């Protein structure tokens, strides 16, 4: 049952190429900017965003307007906007799709945000694997600059603002706001906790607004059509706006779908073509790697921050990863733990030492060498990981704890059979993979029918 959905962020979608400046302009692009800069006060823009109840799309869901209000009133000096395009959460690719669809929507959003907080400089923090996006933003912001929409004295209003791209060299932790600021400053990107917020003391010790790229892309619509329009887009009671859902995994048509916030998971999966033939949904990870497994009983849950929180789930980045009945969730969790272990910044003990600890035990379990006591040890450590320095280790603990909450029998099956019941080979130790695999698991034959090789 395909329903017509409003396209706000992806309305300029063209196959295989990003929308041009002219195309964007033709669809009413930059009108919000023209109607705002020099014509409305920054406070009015801020009020619009507050009224629209725009919540951060980067995972935490903090209201964007509230974050902007954190800038000390009467602060004199440079202010910065940092556009978080790090997006290293496994399963998330919405920002890449968005930039590649409509770069000028993003640029207009950034400028509107900068106007609202009276920032002078914007930094687009982009991860290394999105090099083409970095180039695209650089090119298209030059186009905007040429049209007087960016740079010195925008549209003759006296407001000056410019964007430059900061290329990261890749690490998941750089996506955390305070770590991202440190990364831009050429410091080790360990997150910072305590002390003033980044909106008070951020980049180069100046007030800095760090927002996800998708969050800012919502601004032109809000400013142009008003907060009520934005709220009306959502399907859940308290929600507002649309959301880019990146759907991947065992699904017929994986991809990025723009749907109203509050759309139930079942519908989202329908948009993505539903389960492939012969596949039955076992669980999804609803919001990127640091959200818990959501078993199929939540299929009708409204996908929005509040309803999911009430159900003990997390909306996160709305990156839905679909696991079918043939996928070993212990293996999937182990894979996530491998990722988190590797990407930790190494600052605090539960993260630096706790993740390798549970990773090793999961490797044992997945490899059939697990013991009963290992389950208790993993649960112990997952609890300890919740009291880590930043949200990284607690995020890693989410899928781990939900594995035991919903799928403990599957874990115990590993112990009972002394092997992976789904036929996965024992996890190879990193750095020793090649040539040490059992010959039965190579290019062929594969444990599953649809092995791509």
């Amino acid at each position, binding site marked *: 049952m395909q329903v017509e959905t409003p396209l706000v962020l992806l309305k300029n979608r063209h196959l295989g190429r990003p929308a041009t400046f002219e195309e964007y302009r033709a669809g009413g692009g930059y009108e919000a900017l023209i109607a705002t800069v020099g014509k409305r006060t920054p406070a009015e823009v801020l009020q619009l965003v507050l009224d629209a109840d725009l919540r951060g799309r980067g995972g935490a869901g903090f209201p964007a307007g509230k974050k902007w209000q954190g800038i000390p009133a009467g602060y004199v000096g440079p202010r910065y906007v940092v556009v978080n395009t790090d997006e290293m959460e496994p399963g998330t690719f919405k920002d890449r799709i968005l930039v590649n669809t409509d770069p000028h929507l993003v640029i207009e959003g950034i400028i509107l945000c900068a106007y609202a907080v009276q920032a002078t400089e914007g930094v687009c923090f982009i991860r290394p694997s999105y090099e083409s996006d970095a180039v695209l933003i650089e090119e298209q912001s030059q186009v905007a600059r040429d049209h007087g929409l960016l740079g010195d004295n925008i549209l003759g209003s006296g407001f000056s603002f410019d964007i430059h791209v900061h290329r990261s060299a890749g690490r998941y932790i750089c996506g955390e706001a305070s770590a991202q600021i440190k990364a831009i400053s050429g410091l080790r990107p360990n997150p910072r906790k305590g002390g003033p917020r980044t909106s008070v003391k951020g980049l180069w010790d100046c007030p800095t607004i760090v927002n996800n790229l998708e969050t800012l892309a919502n601004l032109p619509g809000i400013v142009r059509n008003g907060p009520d329009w934005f709220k009306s887009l959502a399907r859940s009671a308290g929600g507002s706006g649309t959301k880019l859902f990146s759907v991947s995994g065992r699904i017929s048509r994986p991809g990025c779908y723009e749907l109203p916030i509050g759309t139930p998971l079942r519908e989202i999966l329908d948009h993505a073509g539903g389960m492939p033939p012969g596949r039955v949904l076992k669980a999804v990870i609803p919001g990127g790697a640091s959200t818990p497994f959501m078993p199929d009983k939540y299929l009708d849950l409204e996908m929005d921050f509040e309803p999911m929180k009430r159900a003990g789930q997390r909306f996160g980045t709305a990156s839905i990863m679909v696991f079918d009945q043939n996928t070993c969730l212990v293996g999937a969790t182990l894979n996530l733990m491998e990722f988190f272990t590797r990407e930790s910044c190494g*600052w605090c003990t539960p993260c630096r030492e706790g993740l390798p600890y549970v990773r*090793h035990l999961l490797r*044992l379990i997945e490899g059939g060498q697990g013991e009963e006591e290992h389950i208790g040890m993993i649960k112990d450590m997952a609890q300890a990981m919740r009291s880590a320095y930043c949200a990284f280790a607690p995020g890693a603990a989410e899928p781990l704890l939900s594995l035991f909450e919903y799928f403990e029998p599957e874990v115990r099956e590993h112990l009972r059979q002394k092997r992976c019941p789904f036929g996965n080979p024992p996890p190879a130790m990193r750095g020793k993979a090649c040539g040490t695999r059992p010959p039965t698991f190579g290019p062929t034959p594969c444990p599953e029918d649809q092995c791509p090789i």
Partner: protein
Amino acid sequence: MPDLIIDGRPVRVPKGTPVIAAAESLGIVIPRFCWHPALGAAGACRMCAVMFLDGPVKGLEMSCMVPAADGMVVETFHPEAVTFRRRVVELLMANHPHDCPVCDEGGHCLLQDETISGGHALRRFPGRKRTYLDQDLGPFIQHEMNRCIHCYRCARFYQEYCGYLDFGPMQNANRVYFGRFASGPLESPFSGNLADICPTGTLTDKPGRYKSRRWDCQRAPSVCPHCSLGCATVALSRYREVVRVEARENPAVNGHFICDRGRYSFGYAASAERPRQARADGVPTSMSTALALAGTRLGGVVEAFGPEAVAVVGSARSSLETQTALTALARAGGWRGPAFFADRTEQQAVAAALAALAGGRARSLAEIGQADAVLCLGVSPLHDAPMLALSLRQAARAGAVVAVADPRPATLPLPFTHLPLAPDKLPGAAALLTGAEAADAAAIQRALPLSPELWPALERLAPAFAAAGNPVLVFAPALAAQAPADARFGLFPVLCGPNAAGAALVADADAPACDDLARAIEAGEVKGLVLAEADAAALSPRLAAALPGLETLVVLDHLPTPSFAAAKVFLPTQTLFESGGTLCNNEARLQYAAPVAPPGEPVSRDGRGGHPPRDYARKLPGTDPLPAAALCAVLALEMGLDMPALSFAAFTGVGPEDVAPEGTRATRLPAAPTAPAPPSAPPGQGLVVVRDDALFATDAYGRYAPLARAQAPAASVVRLHPDDAAGLGLADGEALTVTVGDRRIEATLAVSAAVARGAAVVPRLPGWAGLPAAIGPETLRRRQP
């Protein structure tokens, strides 16, 4: 002042105090690794987790990260907190190697303490242990990365607190490595503190490696005698040898840390060259014979020429007890002296510097860390008083403006402005920055017409100093006259020896100085001299030159100085480690150093066949030395003098029994004497000689400490401004011959714009002591190959 309840006990602490410190004030020590009072919270180790039951914060939180607030109810032994801490220890121990028996930290290891007290005894983690390769971090710090628990204390101390950036964390996740880019000595002159601050055996003290366990050492609070700051230390001795010196916390002076000079220059006390036996005319003899001979010889001089023919010389490195005893001895005999200073100007300068401190204007090192503007006048912090640099760094981190007006090139681990000015220009510069009104550009250009390159810096600095609410002037005593009348300015003199202030307090205002005595010897008025813990050559070259004219020279010392070699009668004295003693630091703070090492040759040098001797009945070798003060009393007895009992309380206003553990400021400062004339341009042509200290082996004790001497630069360097070098026709890096009196010293030339015009910077070494005040091309000559 938040009120909170920790483990059922109410406590009130100052605002901003973290809960961990609040608990400590109740005597509740919450386990910790990364938290350190000087470094603050990092939240990295997660060891200090406690349960917050009520108040603004609830649940399991780190007590180092949460500032105490009203209404908090904290439980440190809540089961959830205990369980969490147990998990943390389990995680930290999962990779910790099995090497406590060969680890030097064993016995004073925080990780050992927390692991054992937390009850973690059995390893349940089945994985393998992570290992790392180590680096060579130079002569002071031993690196053993396997033991690291990644608390980041070292990196935070080294980079943030000290401001050096050659050591720090690398890699990420569970591969984080603390080290340098490549093996090599650590650049920081505070690197030794890493051994103290590391909670495990990752960074340990290399000179003390494999020497002893903490529990086998005699430990006593001591005071560092290697510059005038008087930092608090703990000396550890074992088998009659000081094996290690550590920082002792003194919140008013050095905080928690000391510099490497203070930490690694202790070797003079157990050095093989240290004279431990009395000598008569160069021949070893017994103490009683030597004392009798000293009495007879001095008595003979008194008999033949009268008591005025005997003089006493002391020094700024003796304890107050010794200085007082010398004064008592001289008074009892009616002798000249004691002289503690090279010339009278120096004595007046030190007295004037101390006099200026009256009226609450003295600042401590800790207070400098809180100043908002600091001017160092004629002081090069890193070398004249290394810990001053660390205090300046703390001030600069909090936003203070730091300026160093000094002819020598200055490097500091903080943003600062260097004003390289010749000594005679310093008063002018001081006047520009210490006035109540900000000096304008015209005034600056008038004051320093020949240094246009400094005008912009001064124009920037002047308003900052004028606006500062809590500025401090750090000054060399020769510039005491520049202490501004403006009461805003705190004062911090940097003096020339560990007890220079004591000497200035003890010395009579009209006491002769060494130069006066030298003149008297040359004139034949003085025939006998008692040289107590003073090296004439380093103190006053003129006096050293006059020594052969004496009939008798009695030397009391524990260092093998040239004066010891020249002594007619030599009486060995005990070091500060053996006798203990009171030192008065640059801010007139009296501190007591307790005795820690018993006298005698160290066991390591006593014995044959690889083990100590088994003869228990014999007299221990090398136990002749006595405290200098005691020797003075015995000498007085030998000569039949009635030596009055004199306590240093008479000079300082503070008695030995009143000296608090953190030190007590002298209440009796010199009445403001006529301030010394500010340094003036030397008569005639030439470059003013400015002496520069190195970090190691330029202080009186460090010169005789083998480890410190090994760190001294191999070649002496003379530094000149490019203009002056060009004027002399010399180029950077050239080999020089420097004529000092009738000696020639080989040196190399370093040319740098950071040297003041008109100054020649030479090392402060005894060999260089005879240089005139100004030198020219006849002294500095290109060395002919």
